[in-house]
């Protein structure tokens, strides 16, 4: 039985706690959060112990794996301390806010001989995973142009730290990074990036919105849209090639829609459509990582992979700030760390 500490009892902490609870080879032993009530509530639901002292959870003997679900800037410190305690680390995306922090996390886990994986969960969404399989099977011939979009309401409305670009990196580093990582998984490294966003041009504070144009080293061109300016979540992907086209839009894959006969109270309630699965992608992602922990193998999303996806996101961000394309030299996008 793999014993797990969840650090950060917010939205993602609760999702990962539920997954651990569902998995037959895992159990949640510790929940740490600076908010005592939040830690206690989540701990109670899974019969775990709660603490406001992170180091108590990280150093506990009944912890094998640490799941890091705190705001992005704190990923590094917790990961380094977890690694120093000899715990394997599963960290939410993005791996960190800066390349320096991300590299330090990879190095710390290597030094300690523990596994590190990062929650680029879209690779575990069955529709995106199926596209990966189909592309490897030459389903559309030579890929010409890809389009990916991920739209949502502004998460800062619920958790204010998302609205601080120094913390979250905004819609590009927090949300677009999902599709940047997925497209890297499909097509490899990126040769050139050009992007525009609203946060860098708007005269007044408004919801974050960004468009990026990518040229991959293998020749594929891709358009990526990320938005915190919409009212509700949806994602889509389209890949056009010389022999056909693959396309998925979350809105068109809803299998269940619940509507209540309209009353005045109901009109204001947001309806969340869903596409139910036997196992949700967050659980698949964690099951995969725990299997790697048990077998001592490398997880699909290594720290190094996450560093590369973060580098791409920061290149997109830098292009929006400079108005210039960012180019790769020897396969590495040339970003100025102090510019992003």
């Amino acid at each position, binding site marked *: 039985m793999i014993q797990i500490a969840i650090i950060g009892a917010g939205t993602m902490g609760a999702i990962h706690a539920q997954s651990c609870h569902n998995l037959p080879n895992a159990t949640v032993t510790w929940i740490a959060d600076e908010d005592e009530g939040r830690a206690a509530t989540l701990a109670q639901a899974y019969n775990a112990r709660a603490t406001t002292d992170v180091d108590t959870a990280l150093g506990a003997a009944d912890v094998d794996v640490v799941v890091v679900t705190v705001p992005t800037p704190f990923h590094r410190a917790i990961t380094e301390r977890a690694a120093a305690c000899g715990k394997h680390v599963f960290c939410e995306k993005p791996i960190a806010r800066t390349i320096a922090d991300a590299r330090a996390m990879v190095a710390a886990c290597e030094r300690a001989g523990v596994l590190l994986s990062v929650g680029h969960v879209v690779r575990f969404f069955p529709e995106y995973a199926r596209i990966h399989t189909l592309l490897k099977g030459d389903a559309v011939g030579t890929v010409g*142009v890809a389009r990916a979009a991920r739209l949502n309401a502004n998460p800062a409305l619920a958790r204010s730290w998302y609205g601080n670009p120094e913390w979250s990196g905004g819609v590009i580093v927090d949300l677009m990074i999902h599709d940047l990582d997925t497209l890297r998984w499909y097509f490899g490294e990126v040769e050139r990036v050009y992007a525009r966003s609203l946060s860098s041009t708007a005269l007044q504070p408004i919801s974050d919105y960004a468009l990026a144009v990518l040229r991959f080293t293998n020749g594929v061109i891709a358009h990526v849209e990320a938005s915190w300016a919409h009212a509700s979540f949806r994602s889509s992907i389209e890949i056009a090639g010389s022999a056909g086209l693959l396309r998925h839009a979350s809105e068109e894959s809803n299998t269940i829609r619940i509507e209540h006969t309209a009353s005045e109270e109901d009109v204001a309630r947001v309806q969340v459509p869903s596409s139910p699965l036997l196992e949700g992608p967050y659980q698949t992602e964690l099951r995969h990582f725990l299997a790697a922990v048990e077998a001592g193998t490398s997880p699909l999303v290594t720290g190094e992979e996450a560093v590369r996806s973060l580098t791409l996101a920061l290149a997109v961000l830098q292009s929006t700030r400079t108005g210039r394309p960012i180019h790769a030299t020897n396969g590495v996008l040339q970003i100025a760390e102090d510019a992003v």
Partner: protein
Amino acid sequence: MKVGILSFAHVHAQGYARCLAAMPDIELVAIADDDETRGATAVAQFGGEWYADYRDLLAHDDLAAVIISSPNALHREMVLAAAAAGKHVLCEKPLATTRPDALAMIEGCRAHGVRLMTAFPMRFSPPVLALRTAVQAGEVGTPRAVMATNHGTMPPGWFSDPALAGGGAVMDHTVHVADLLRWIFGCEITRVYAEVDTRIHPGIPTDDVALLLMELENGMFASLDPSWARPATWPTWGGLTMDVVGDRGVVAMNAFNQTLQRYDDRAGRYSLIPWVEGGDPAMLRAFFDAIEHDAEPPITGEDGLHAMEVALCAYESAKRHEPVACPGVLAGAAA
């Protein structure tokens, strides 16, 4: 009013001729096409007299106006000849394939006192009009960004011959959205960044995939995917979409979504059948109205020039791997 059509080489000529047939005050009296089969077919379908040489058609004294739908690079000589013959001109998009050609056409029509209109039917598409109304009514607050697509399947024949078409997907499909951006937001496109390539149809001598990221004079940015990226099995020719993001919301427009679904076992095919007319009838009506009232057409030769320049800038940007400033705007600012 008696009118002629110069060339059925562009697929849009068919649609225009169908619209003319439905206009009681307009008579299609002559069709010129150097391809005899194509000319004869058109005459059999829509009436009028066939001319192998468009110059013989232009000698018709009672013709008031012509529609020119020849391959893009031939627009210049036909427009100039029509202007010299005193015929008003509705010219298919893109207006031309080079800046000197477009300027010569605009100047030639001005010198001979004939009207020149660029055929941008999307300005008359009801979904596009609804988008413009919503944006201008402040439905999404101050507009900040646009994401547009103008996808298509690979068009036949000369469309992929750069000598006749002046380019590929970028030249074919950039001008519609470029014109709509200028028209809806009332300002010029100032800078263009683009990735352009040939990947979907290997071996064709022109581009078939592209992504553009443009800047507008008012500070907005807009992306466009003009790729001929729809496979042969796609259920319709393509489409045009525009999402406008403002500081108070988003409006998404799909100009060709008024379709029904057809599953056809005999053809082994699934297809989308439009149940609306599109913008052609209103565009042609606007052209004839302008002539009758001796007024400037709602879409000018200059509009055609500016839209074409955006496509040319995209090609330049793709070569240089950097954003390119639109020369038309600089010239306009200097003047």
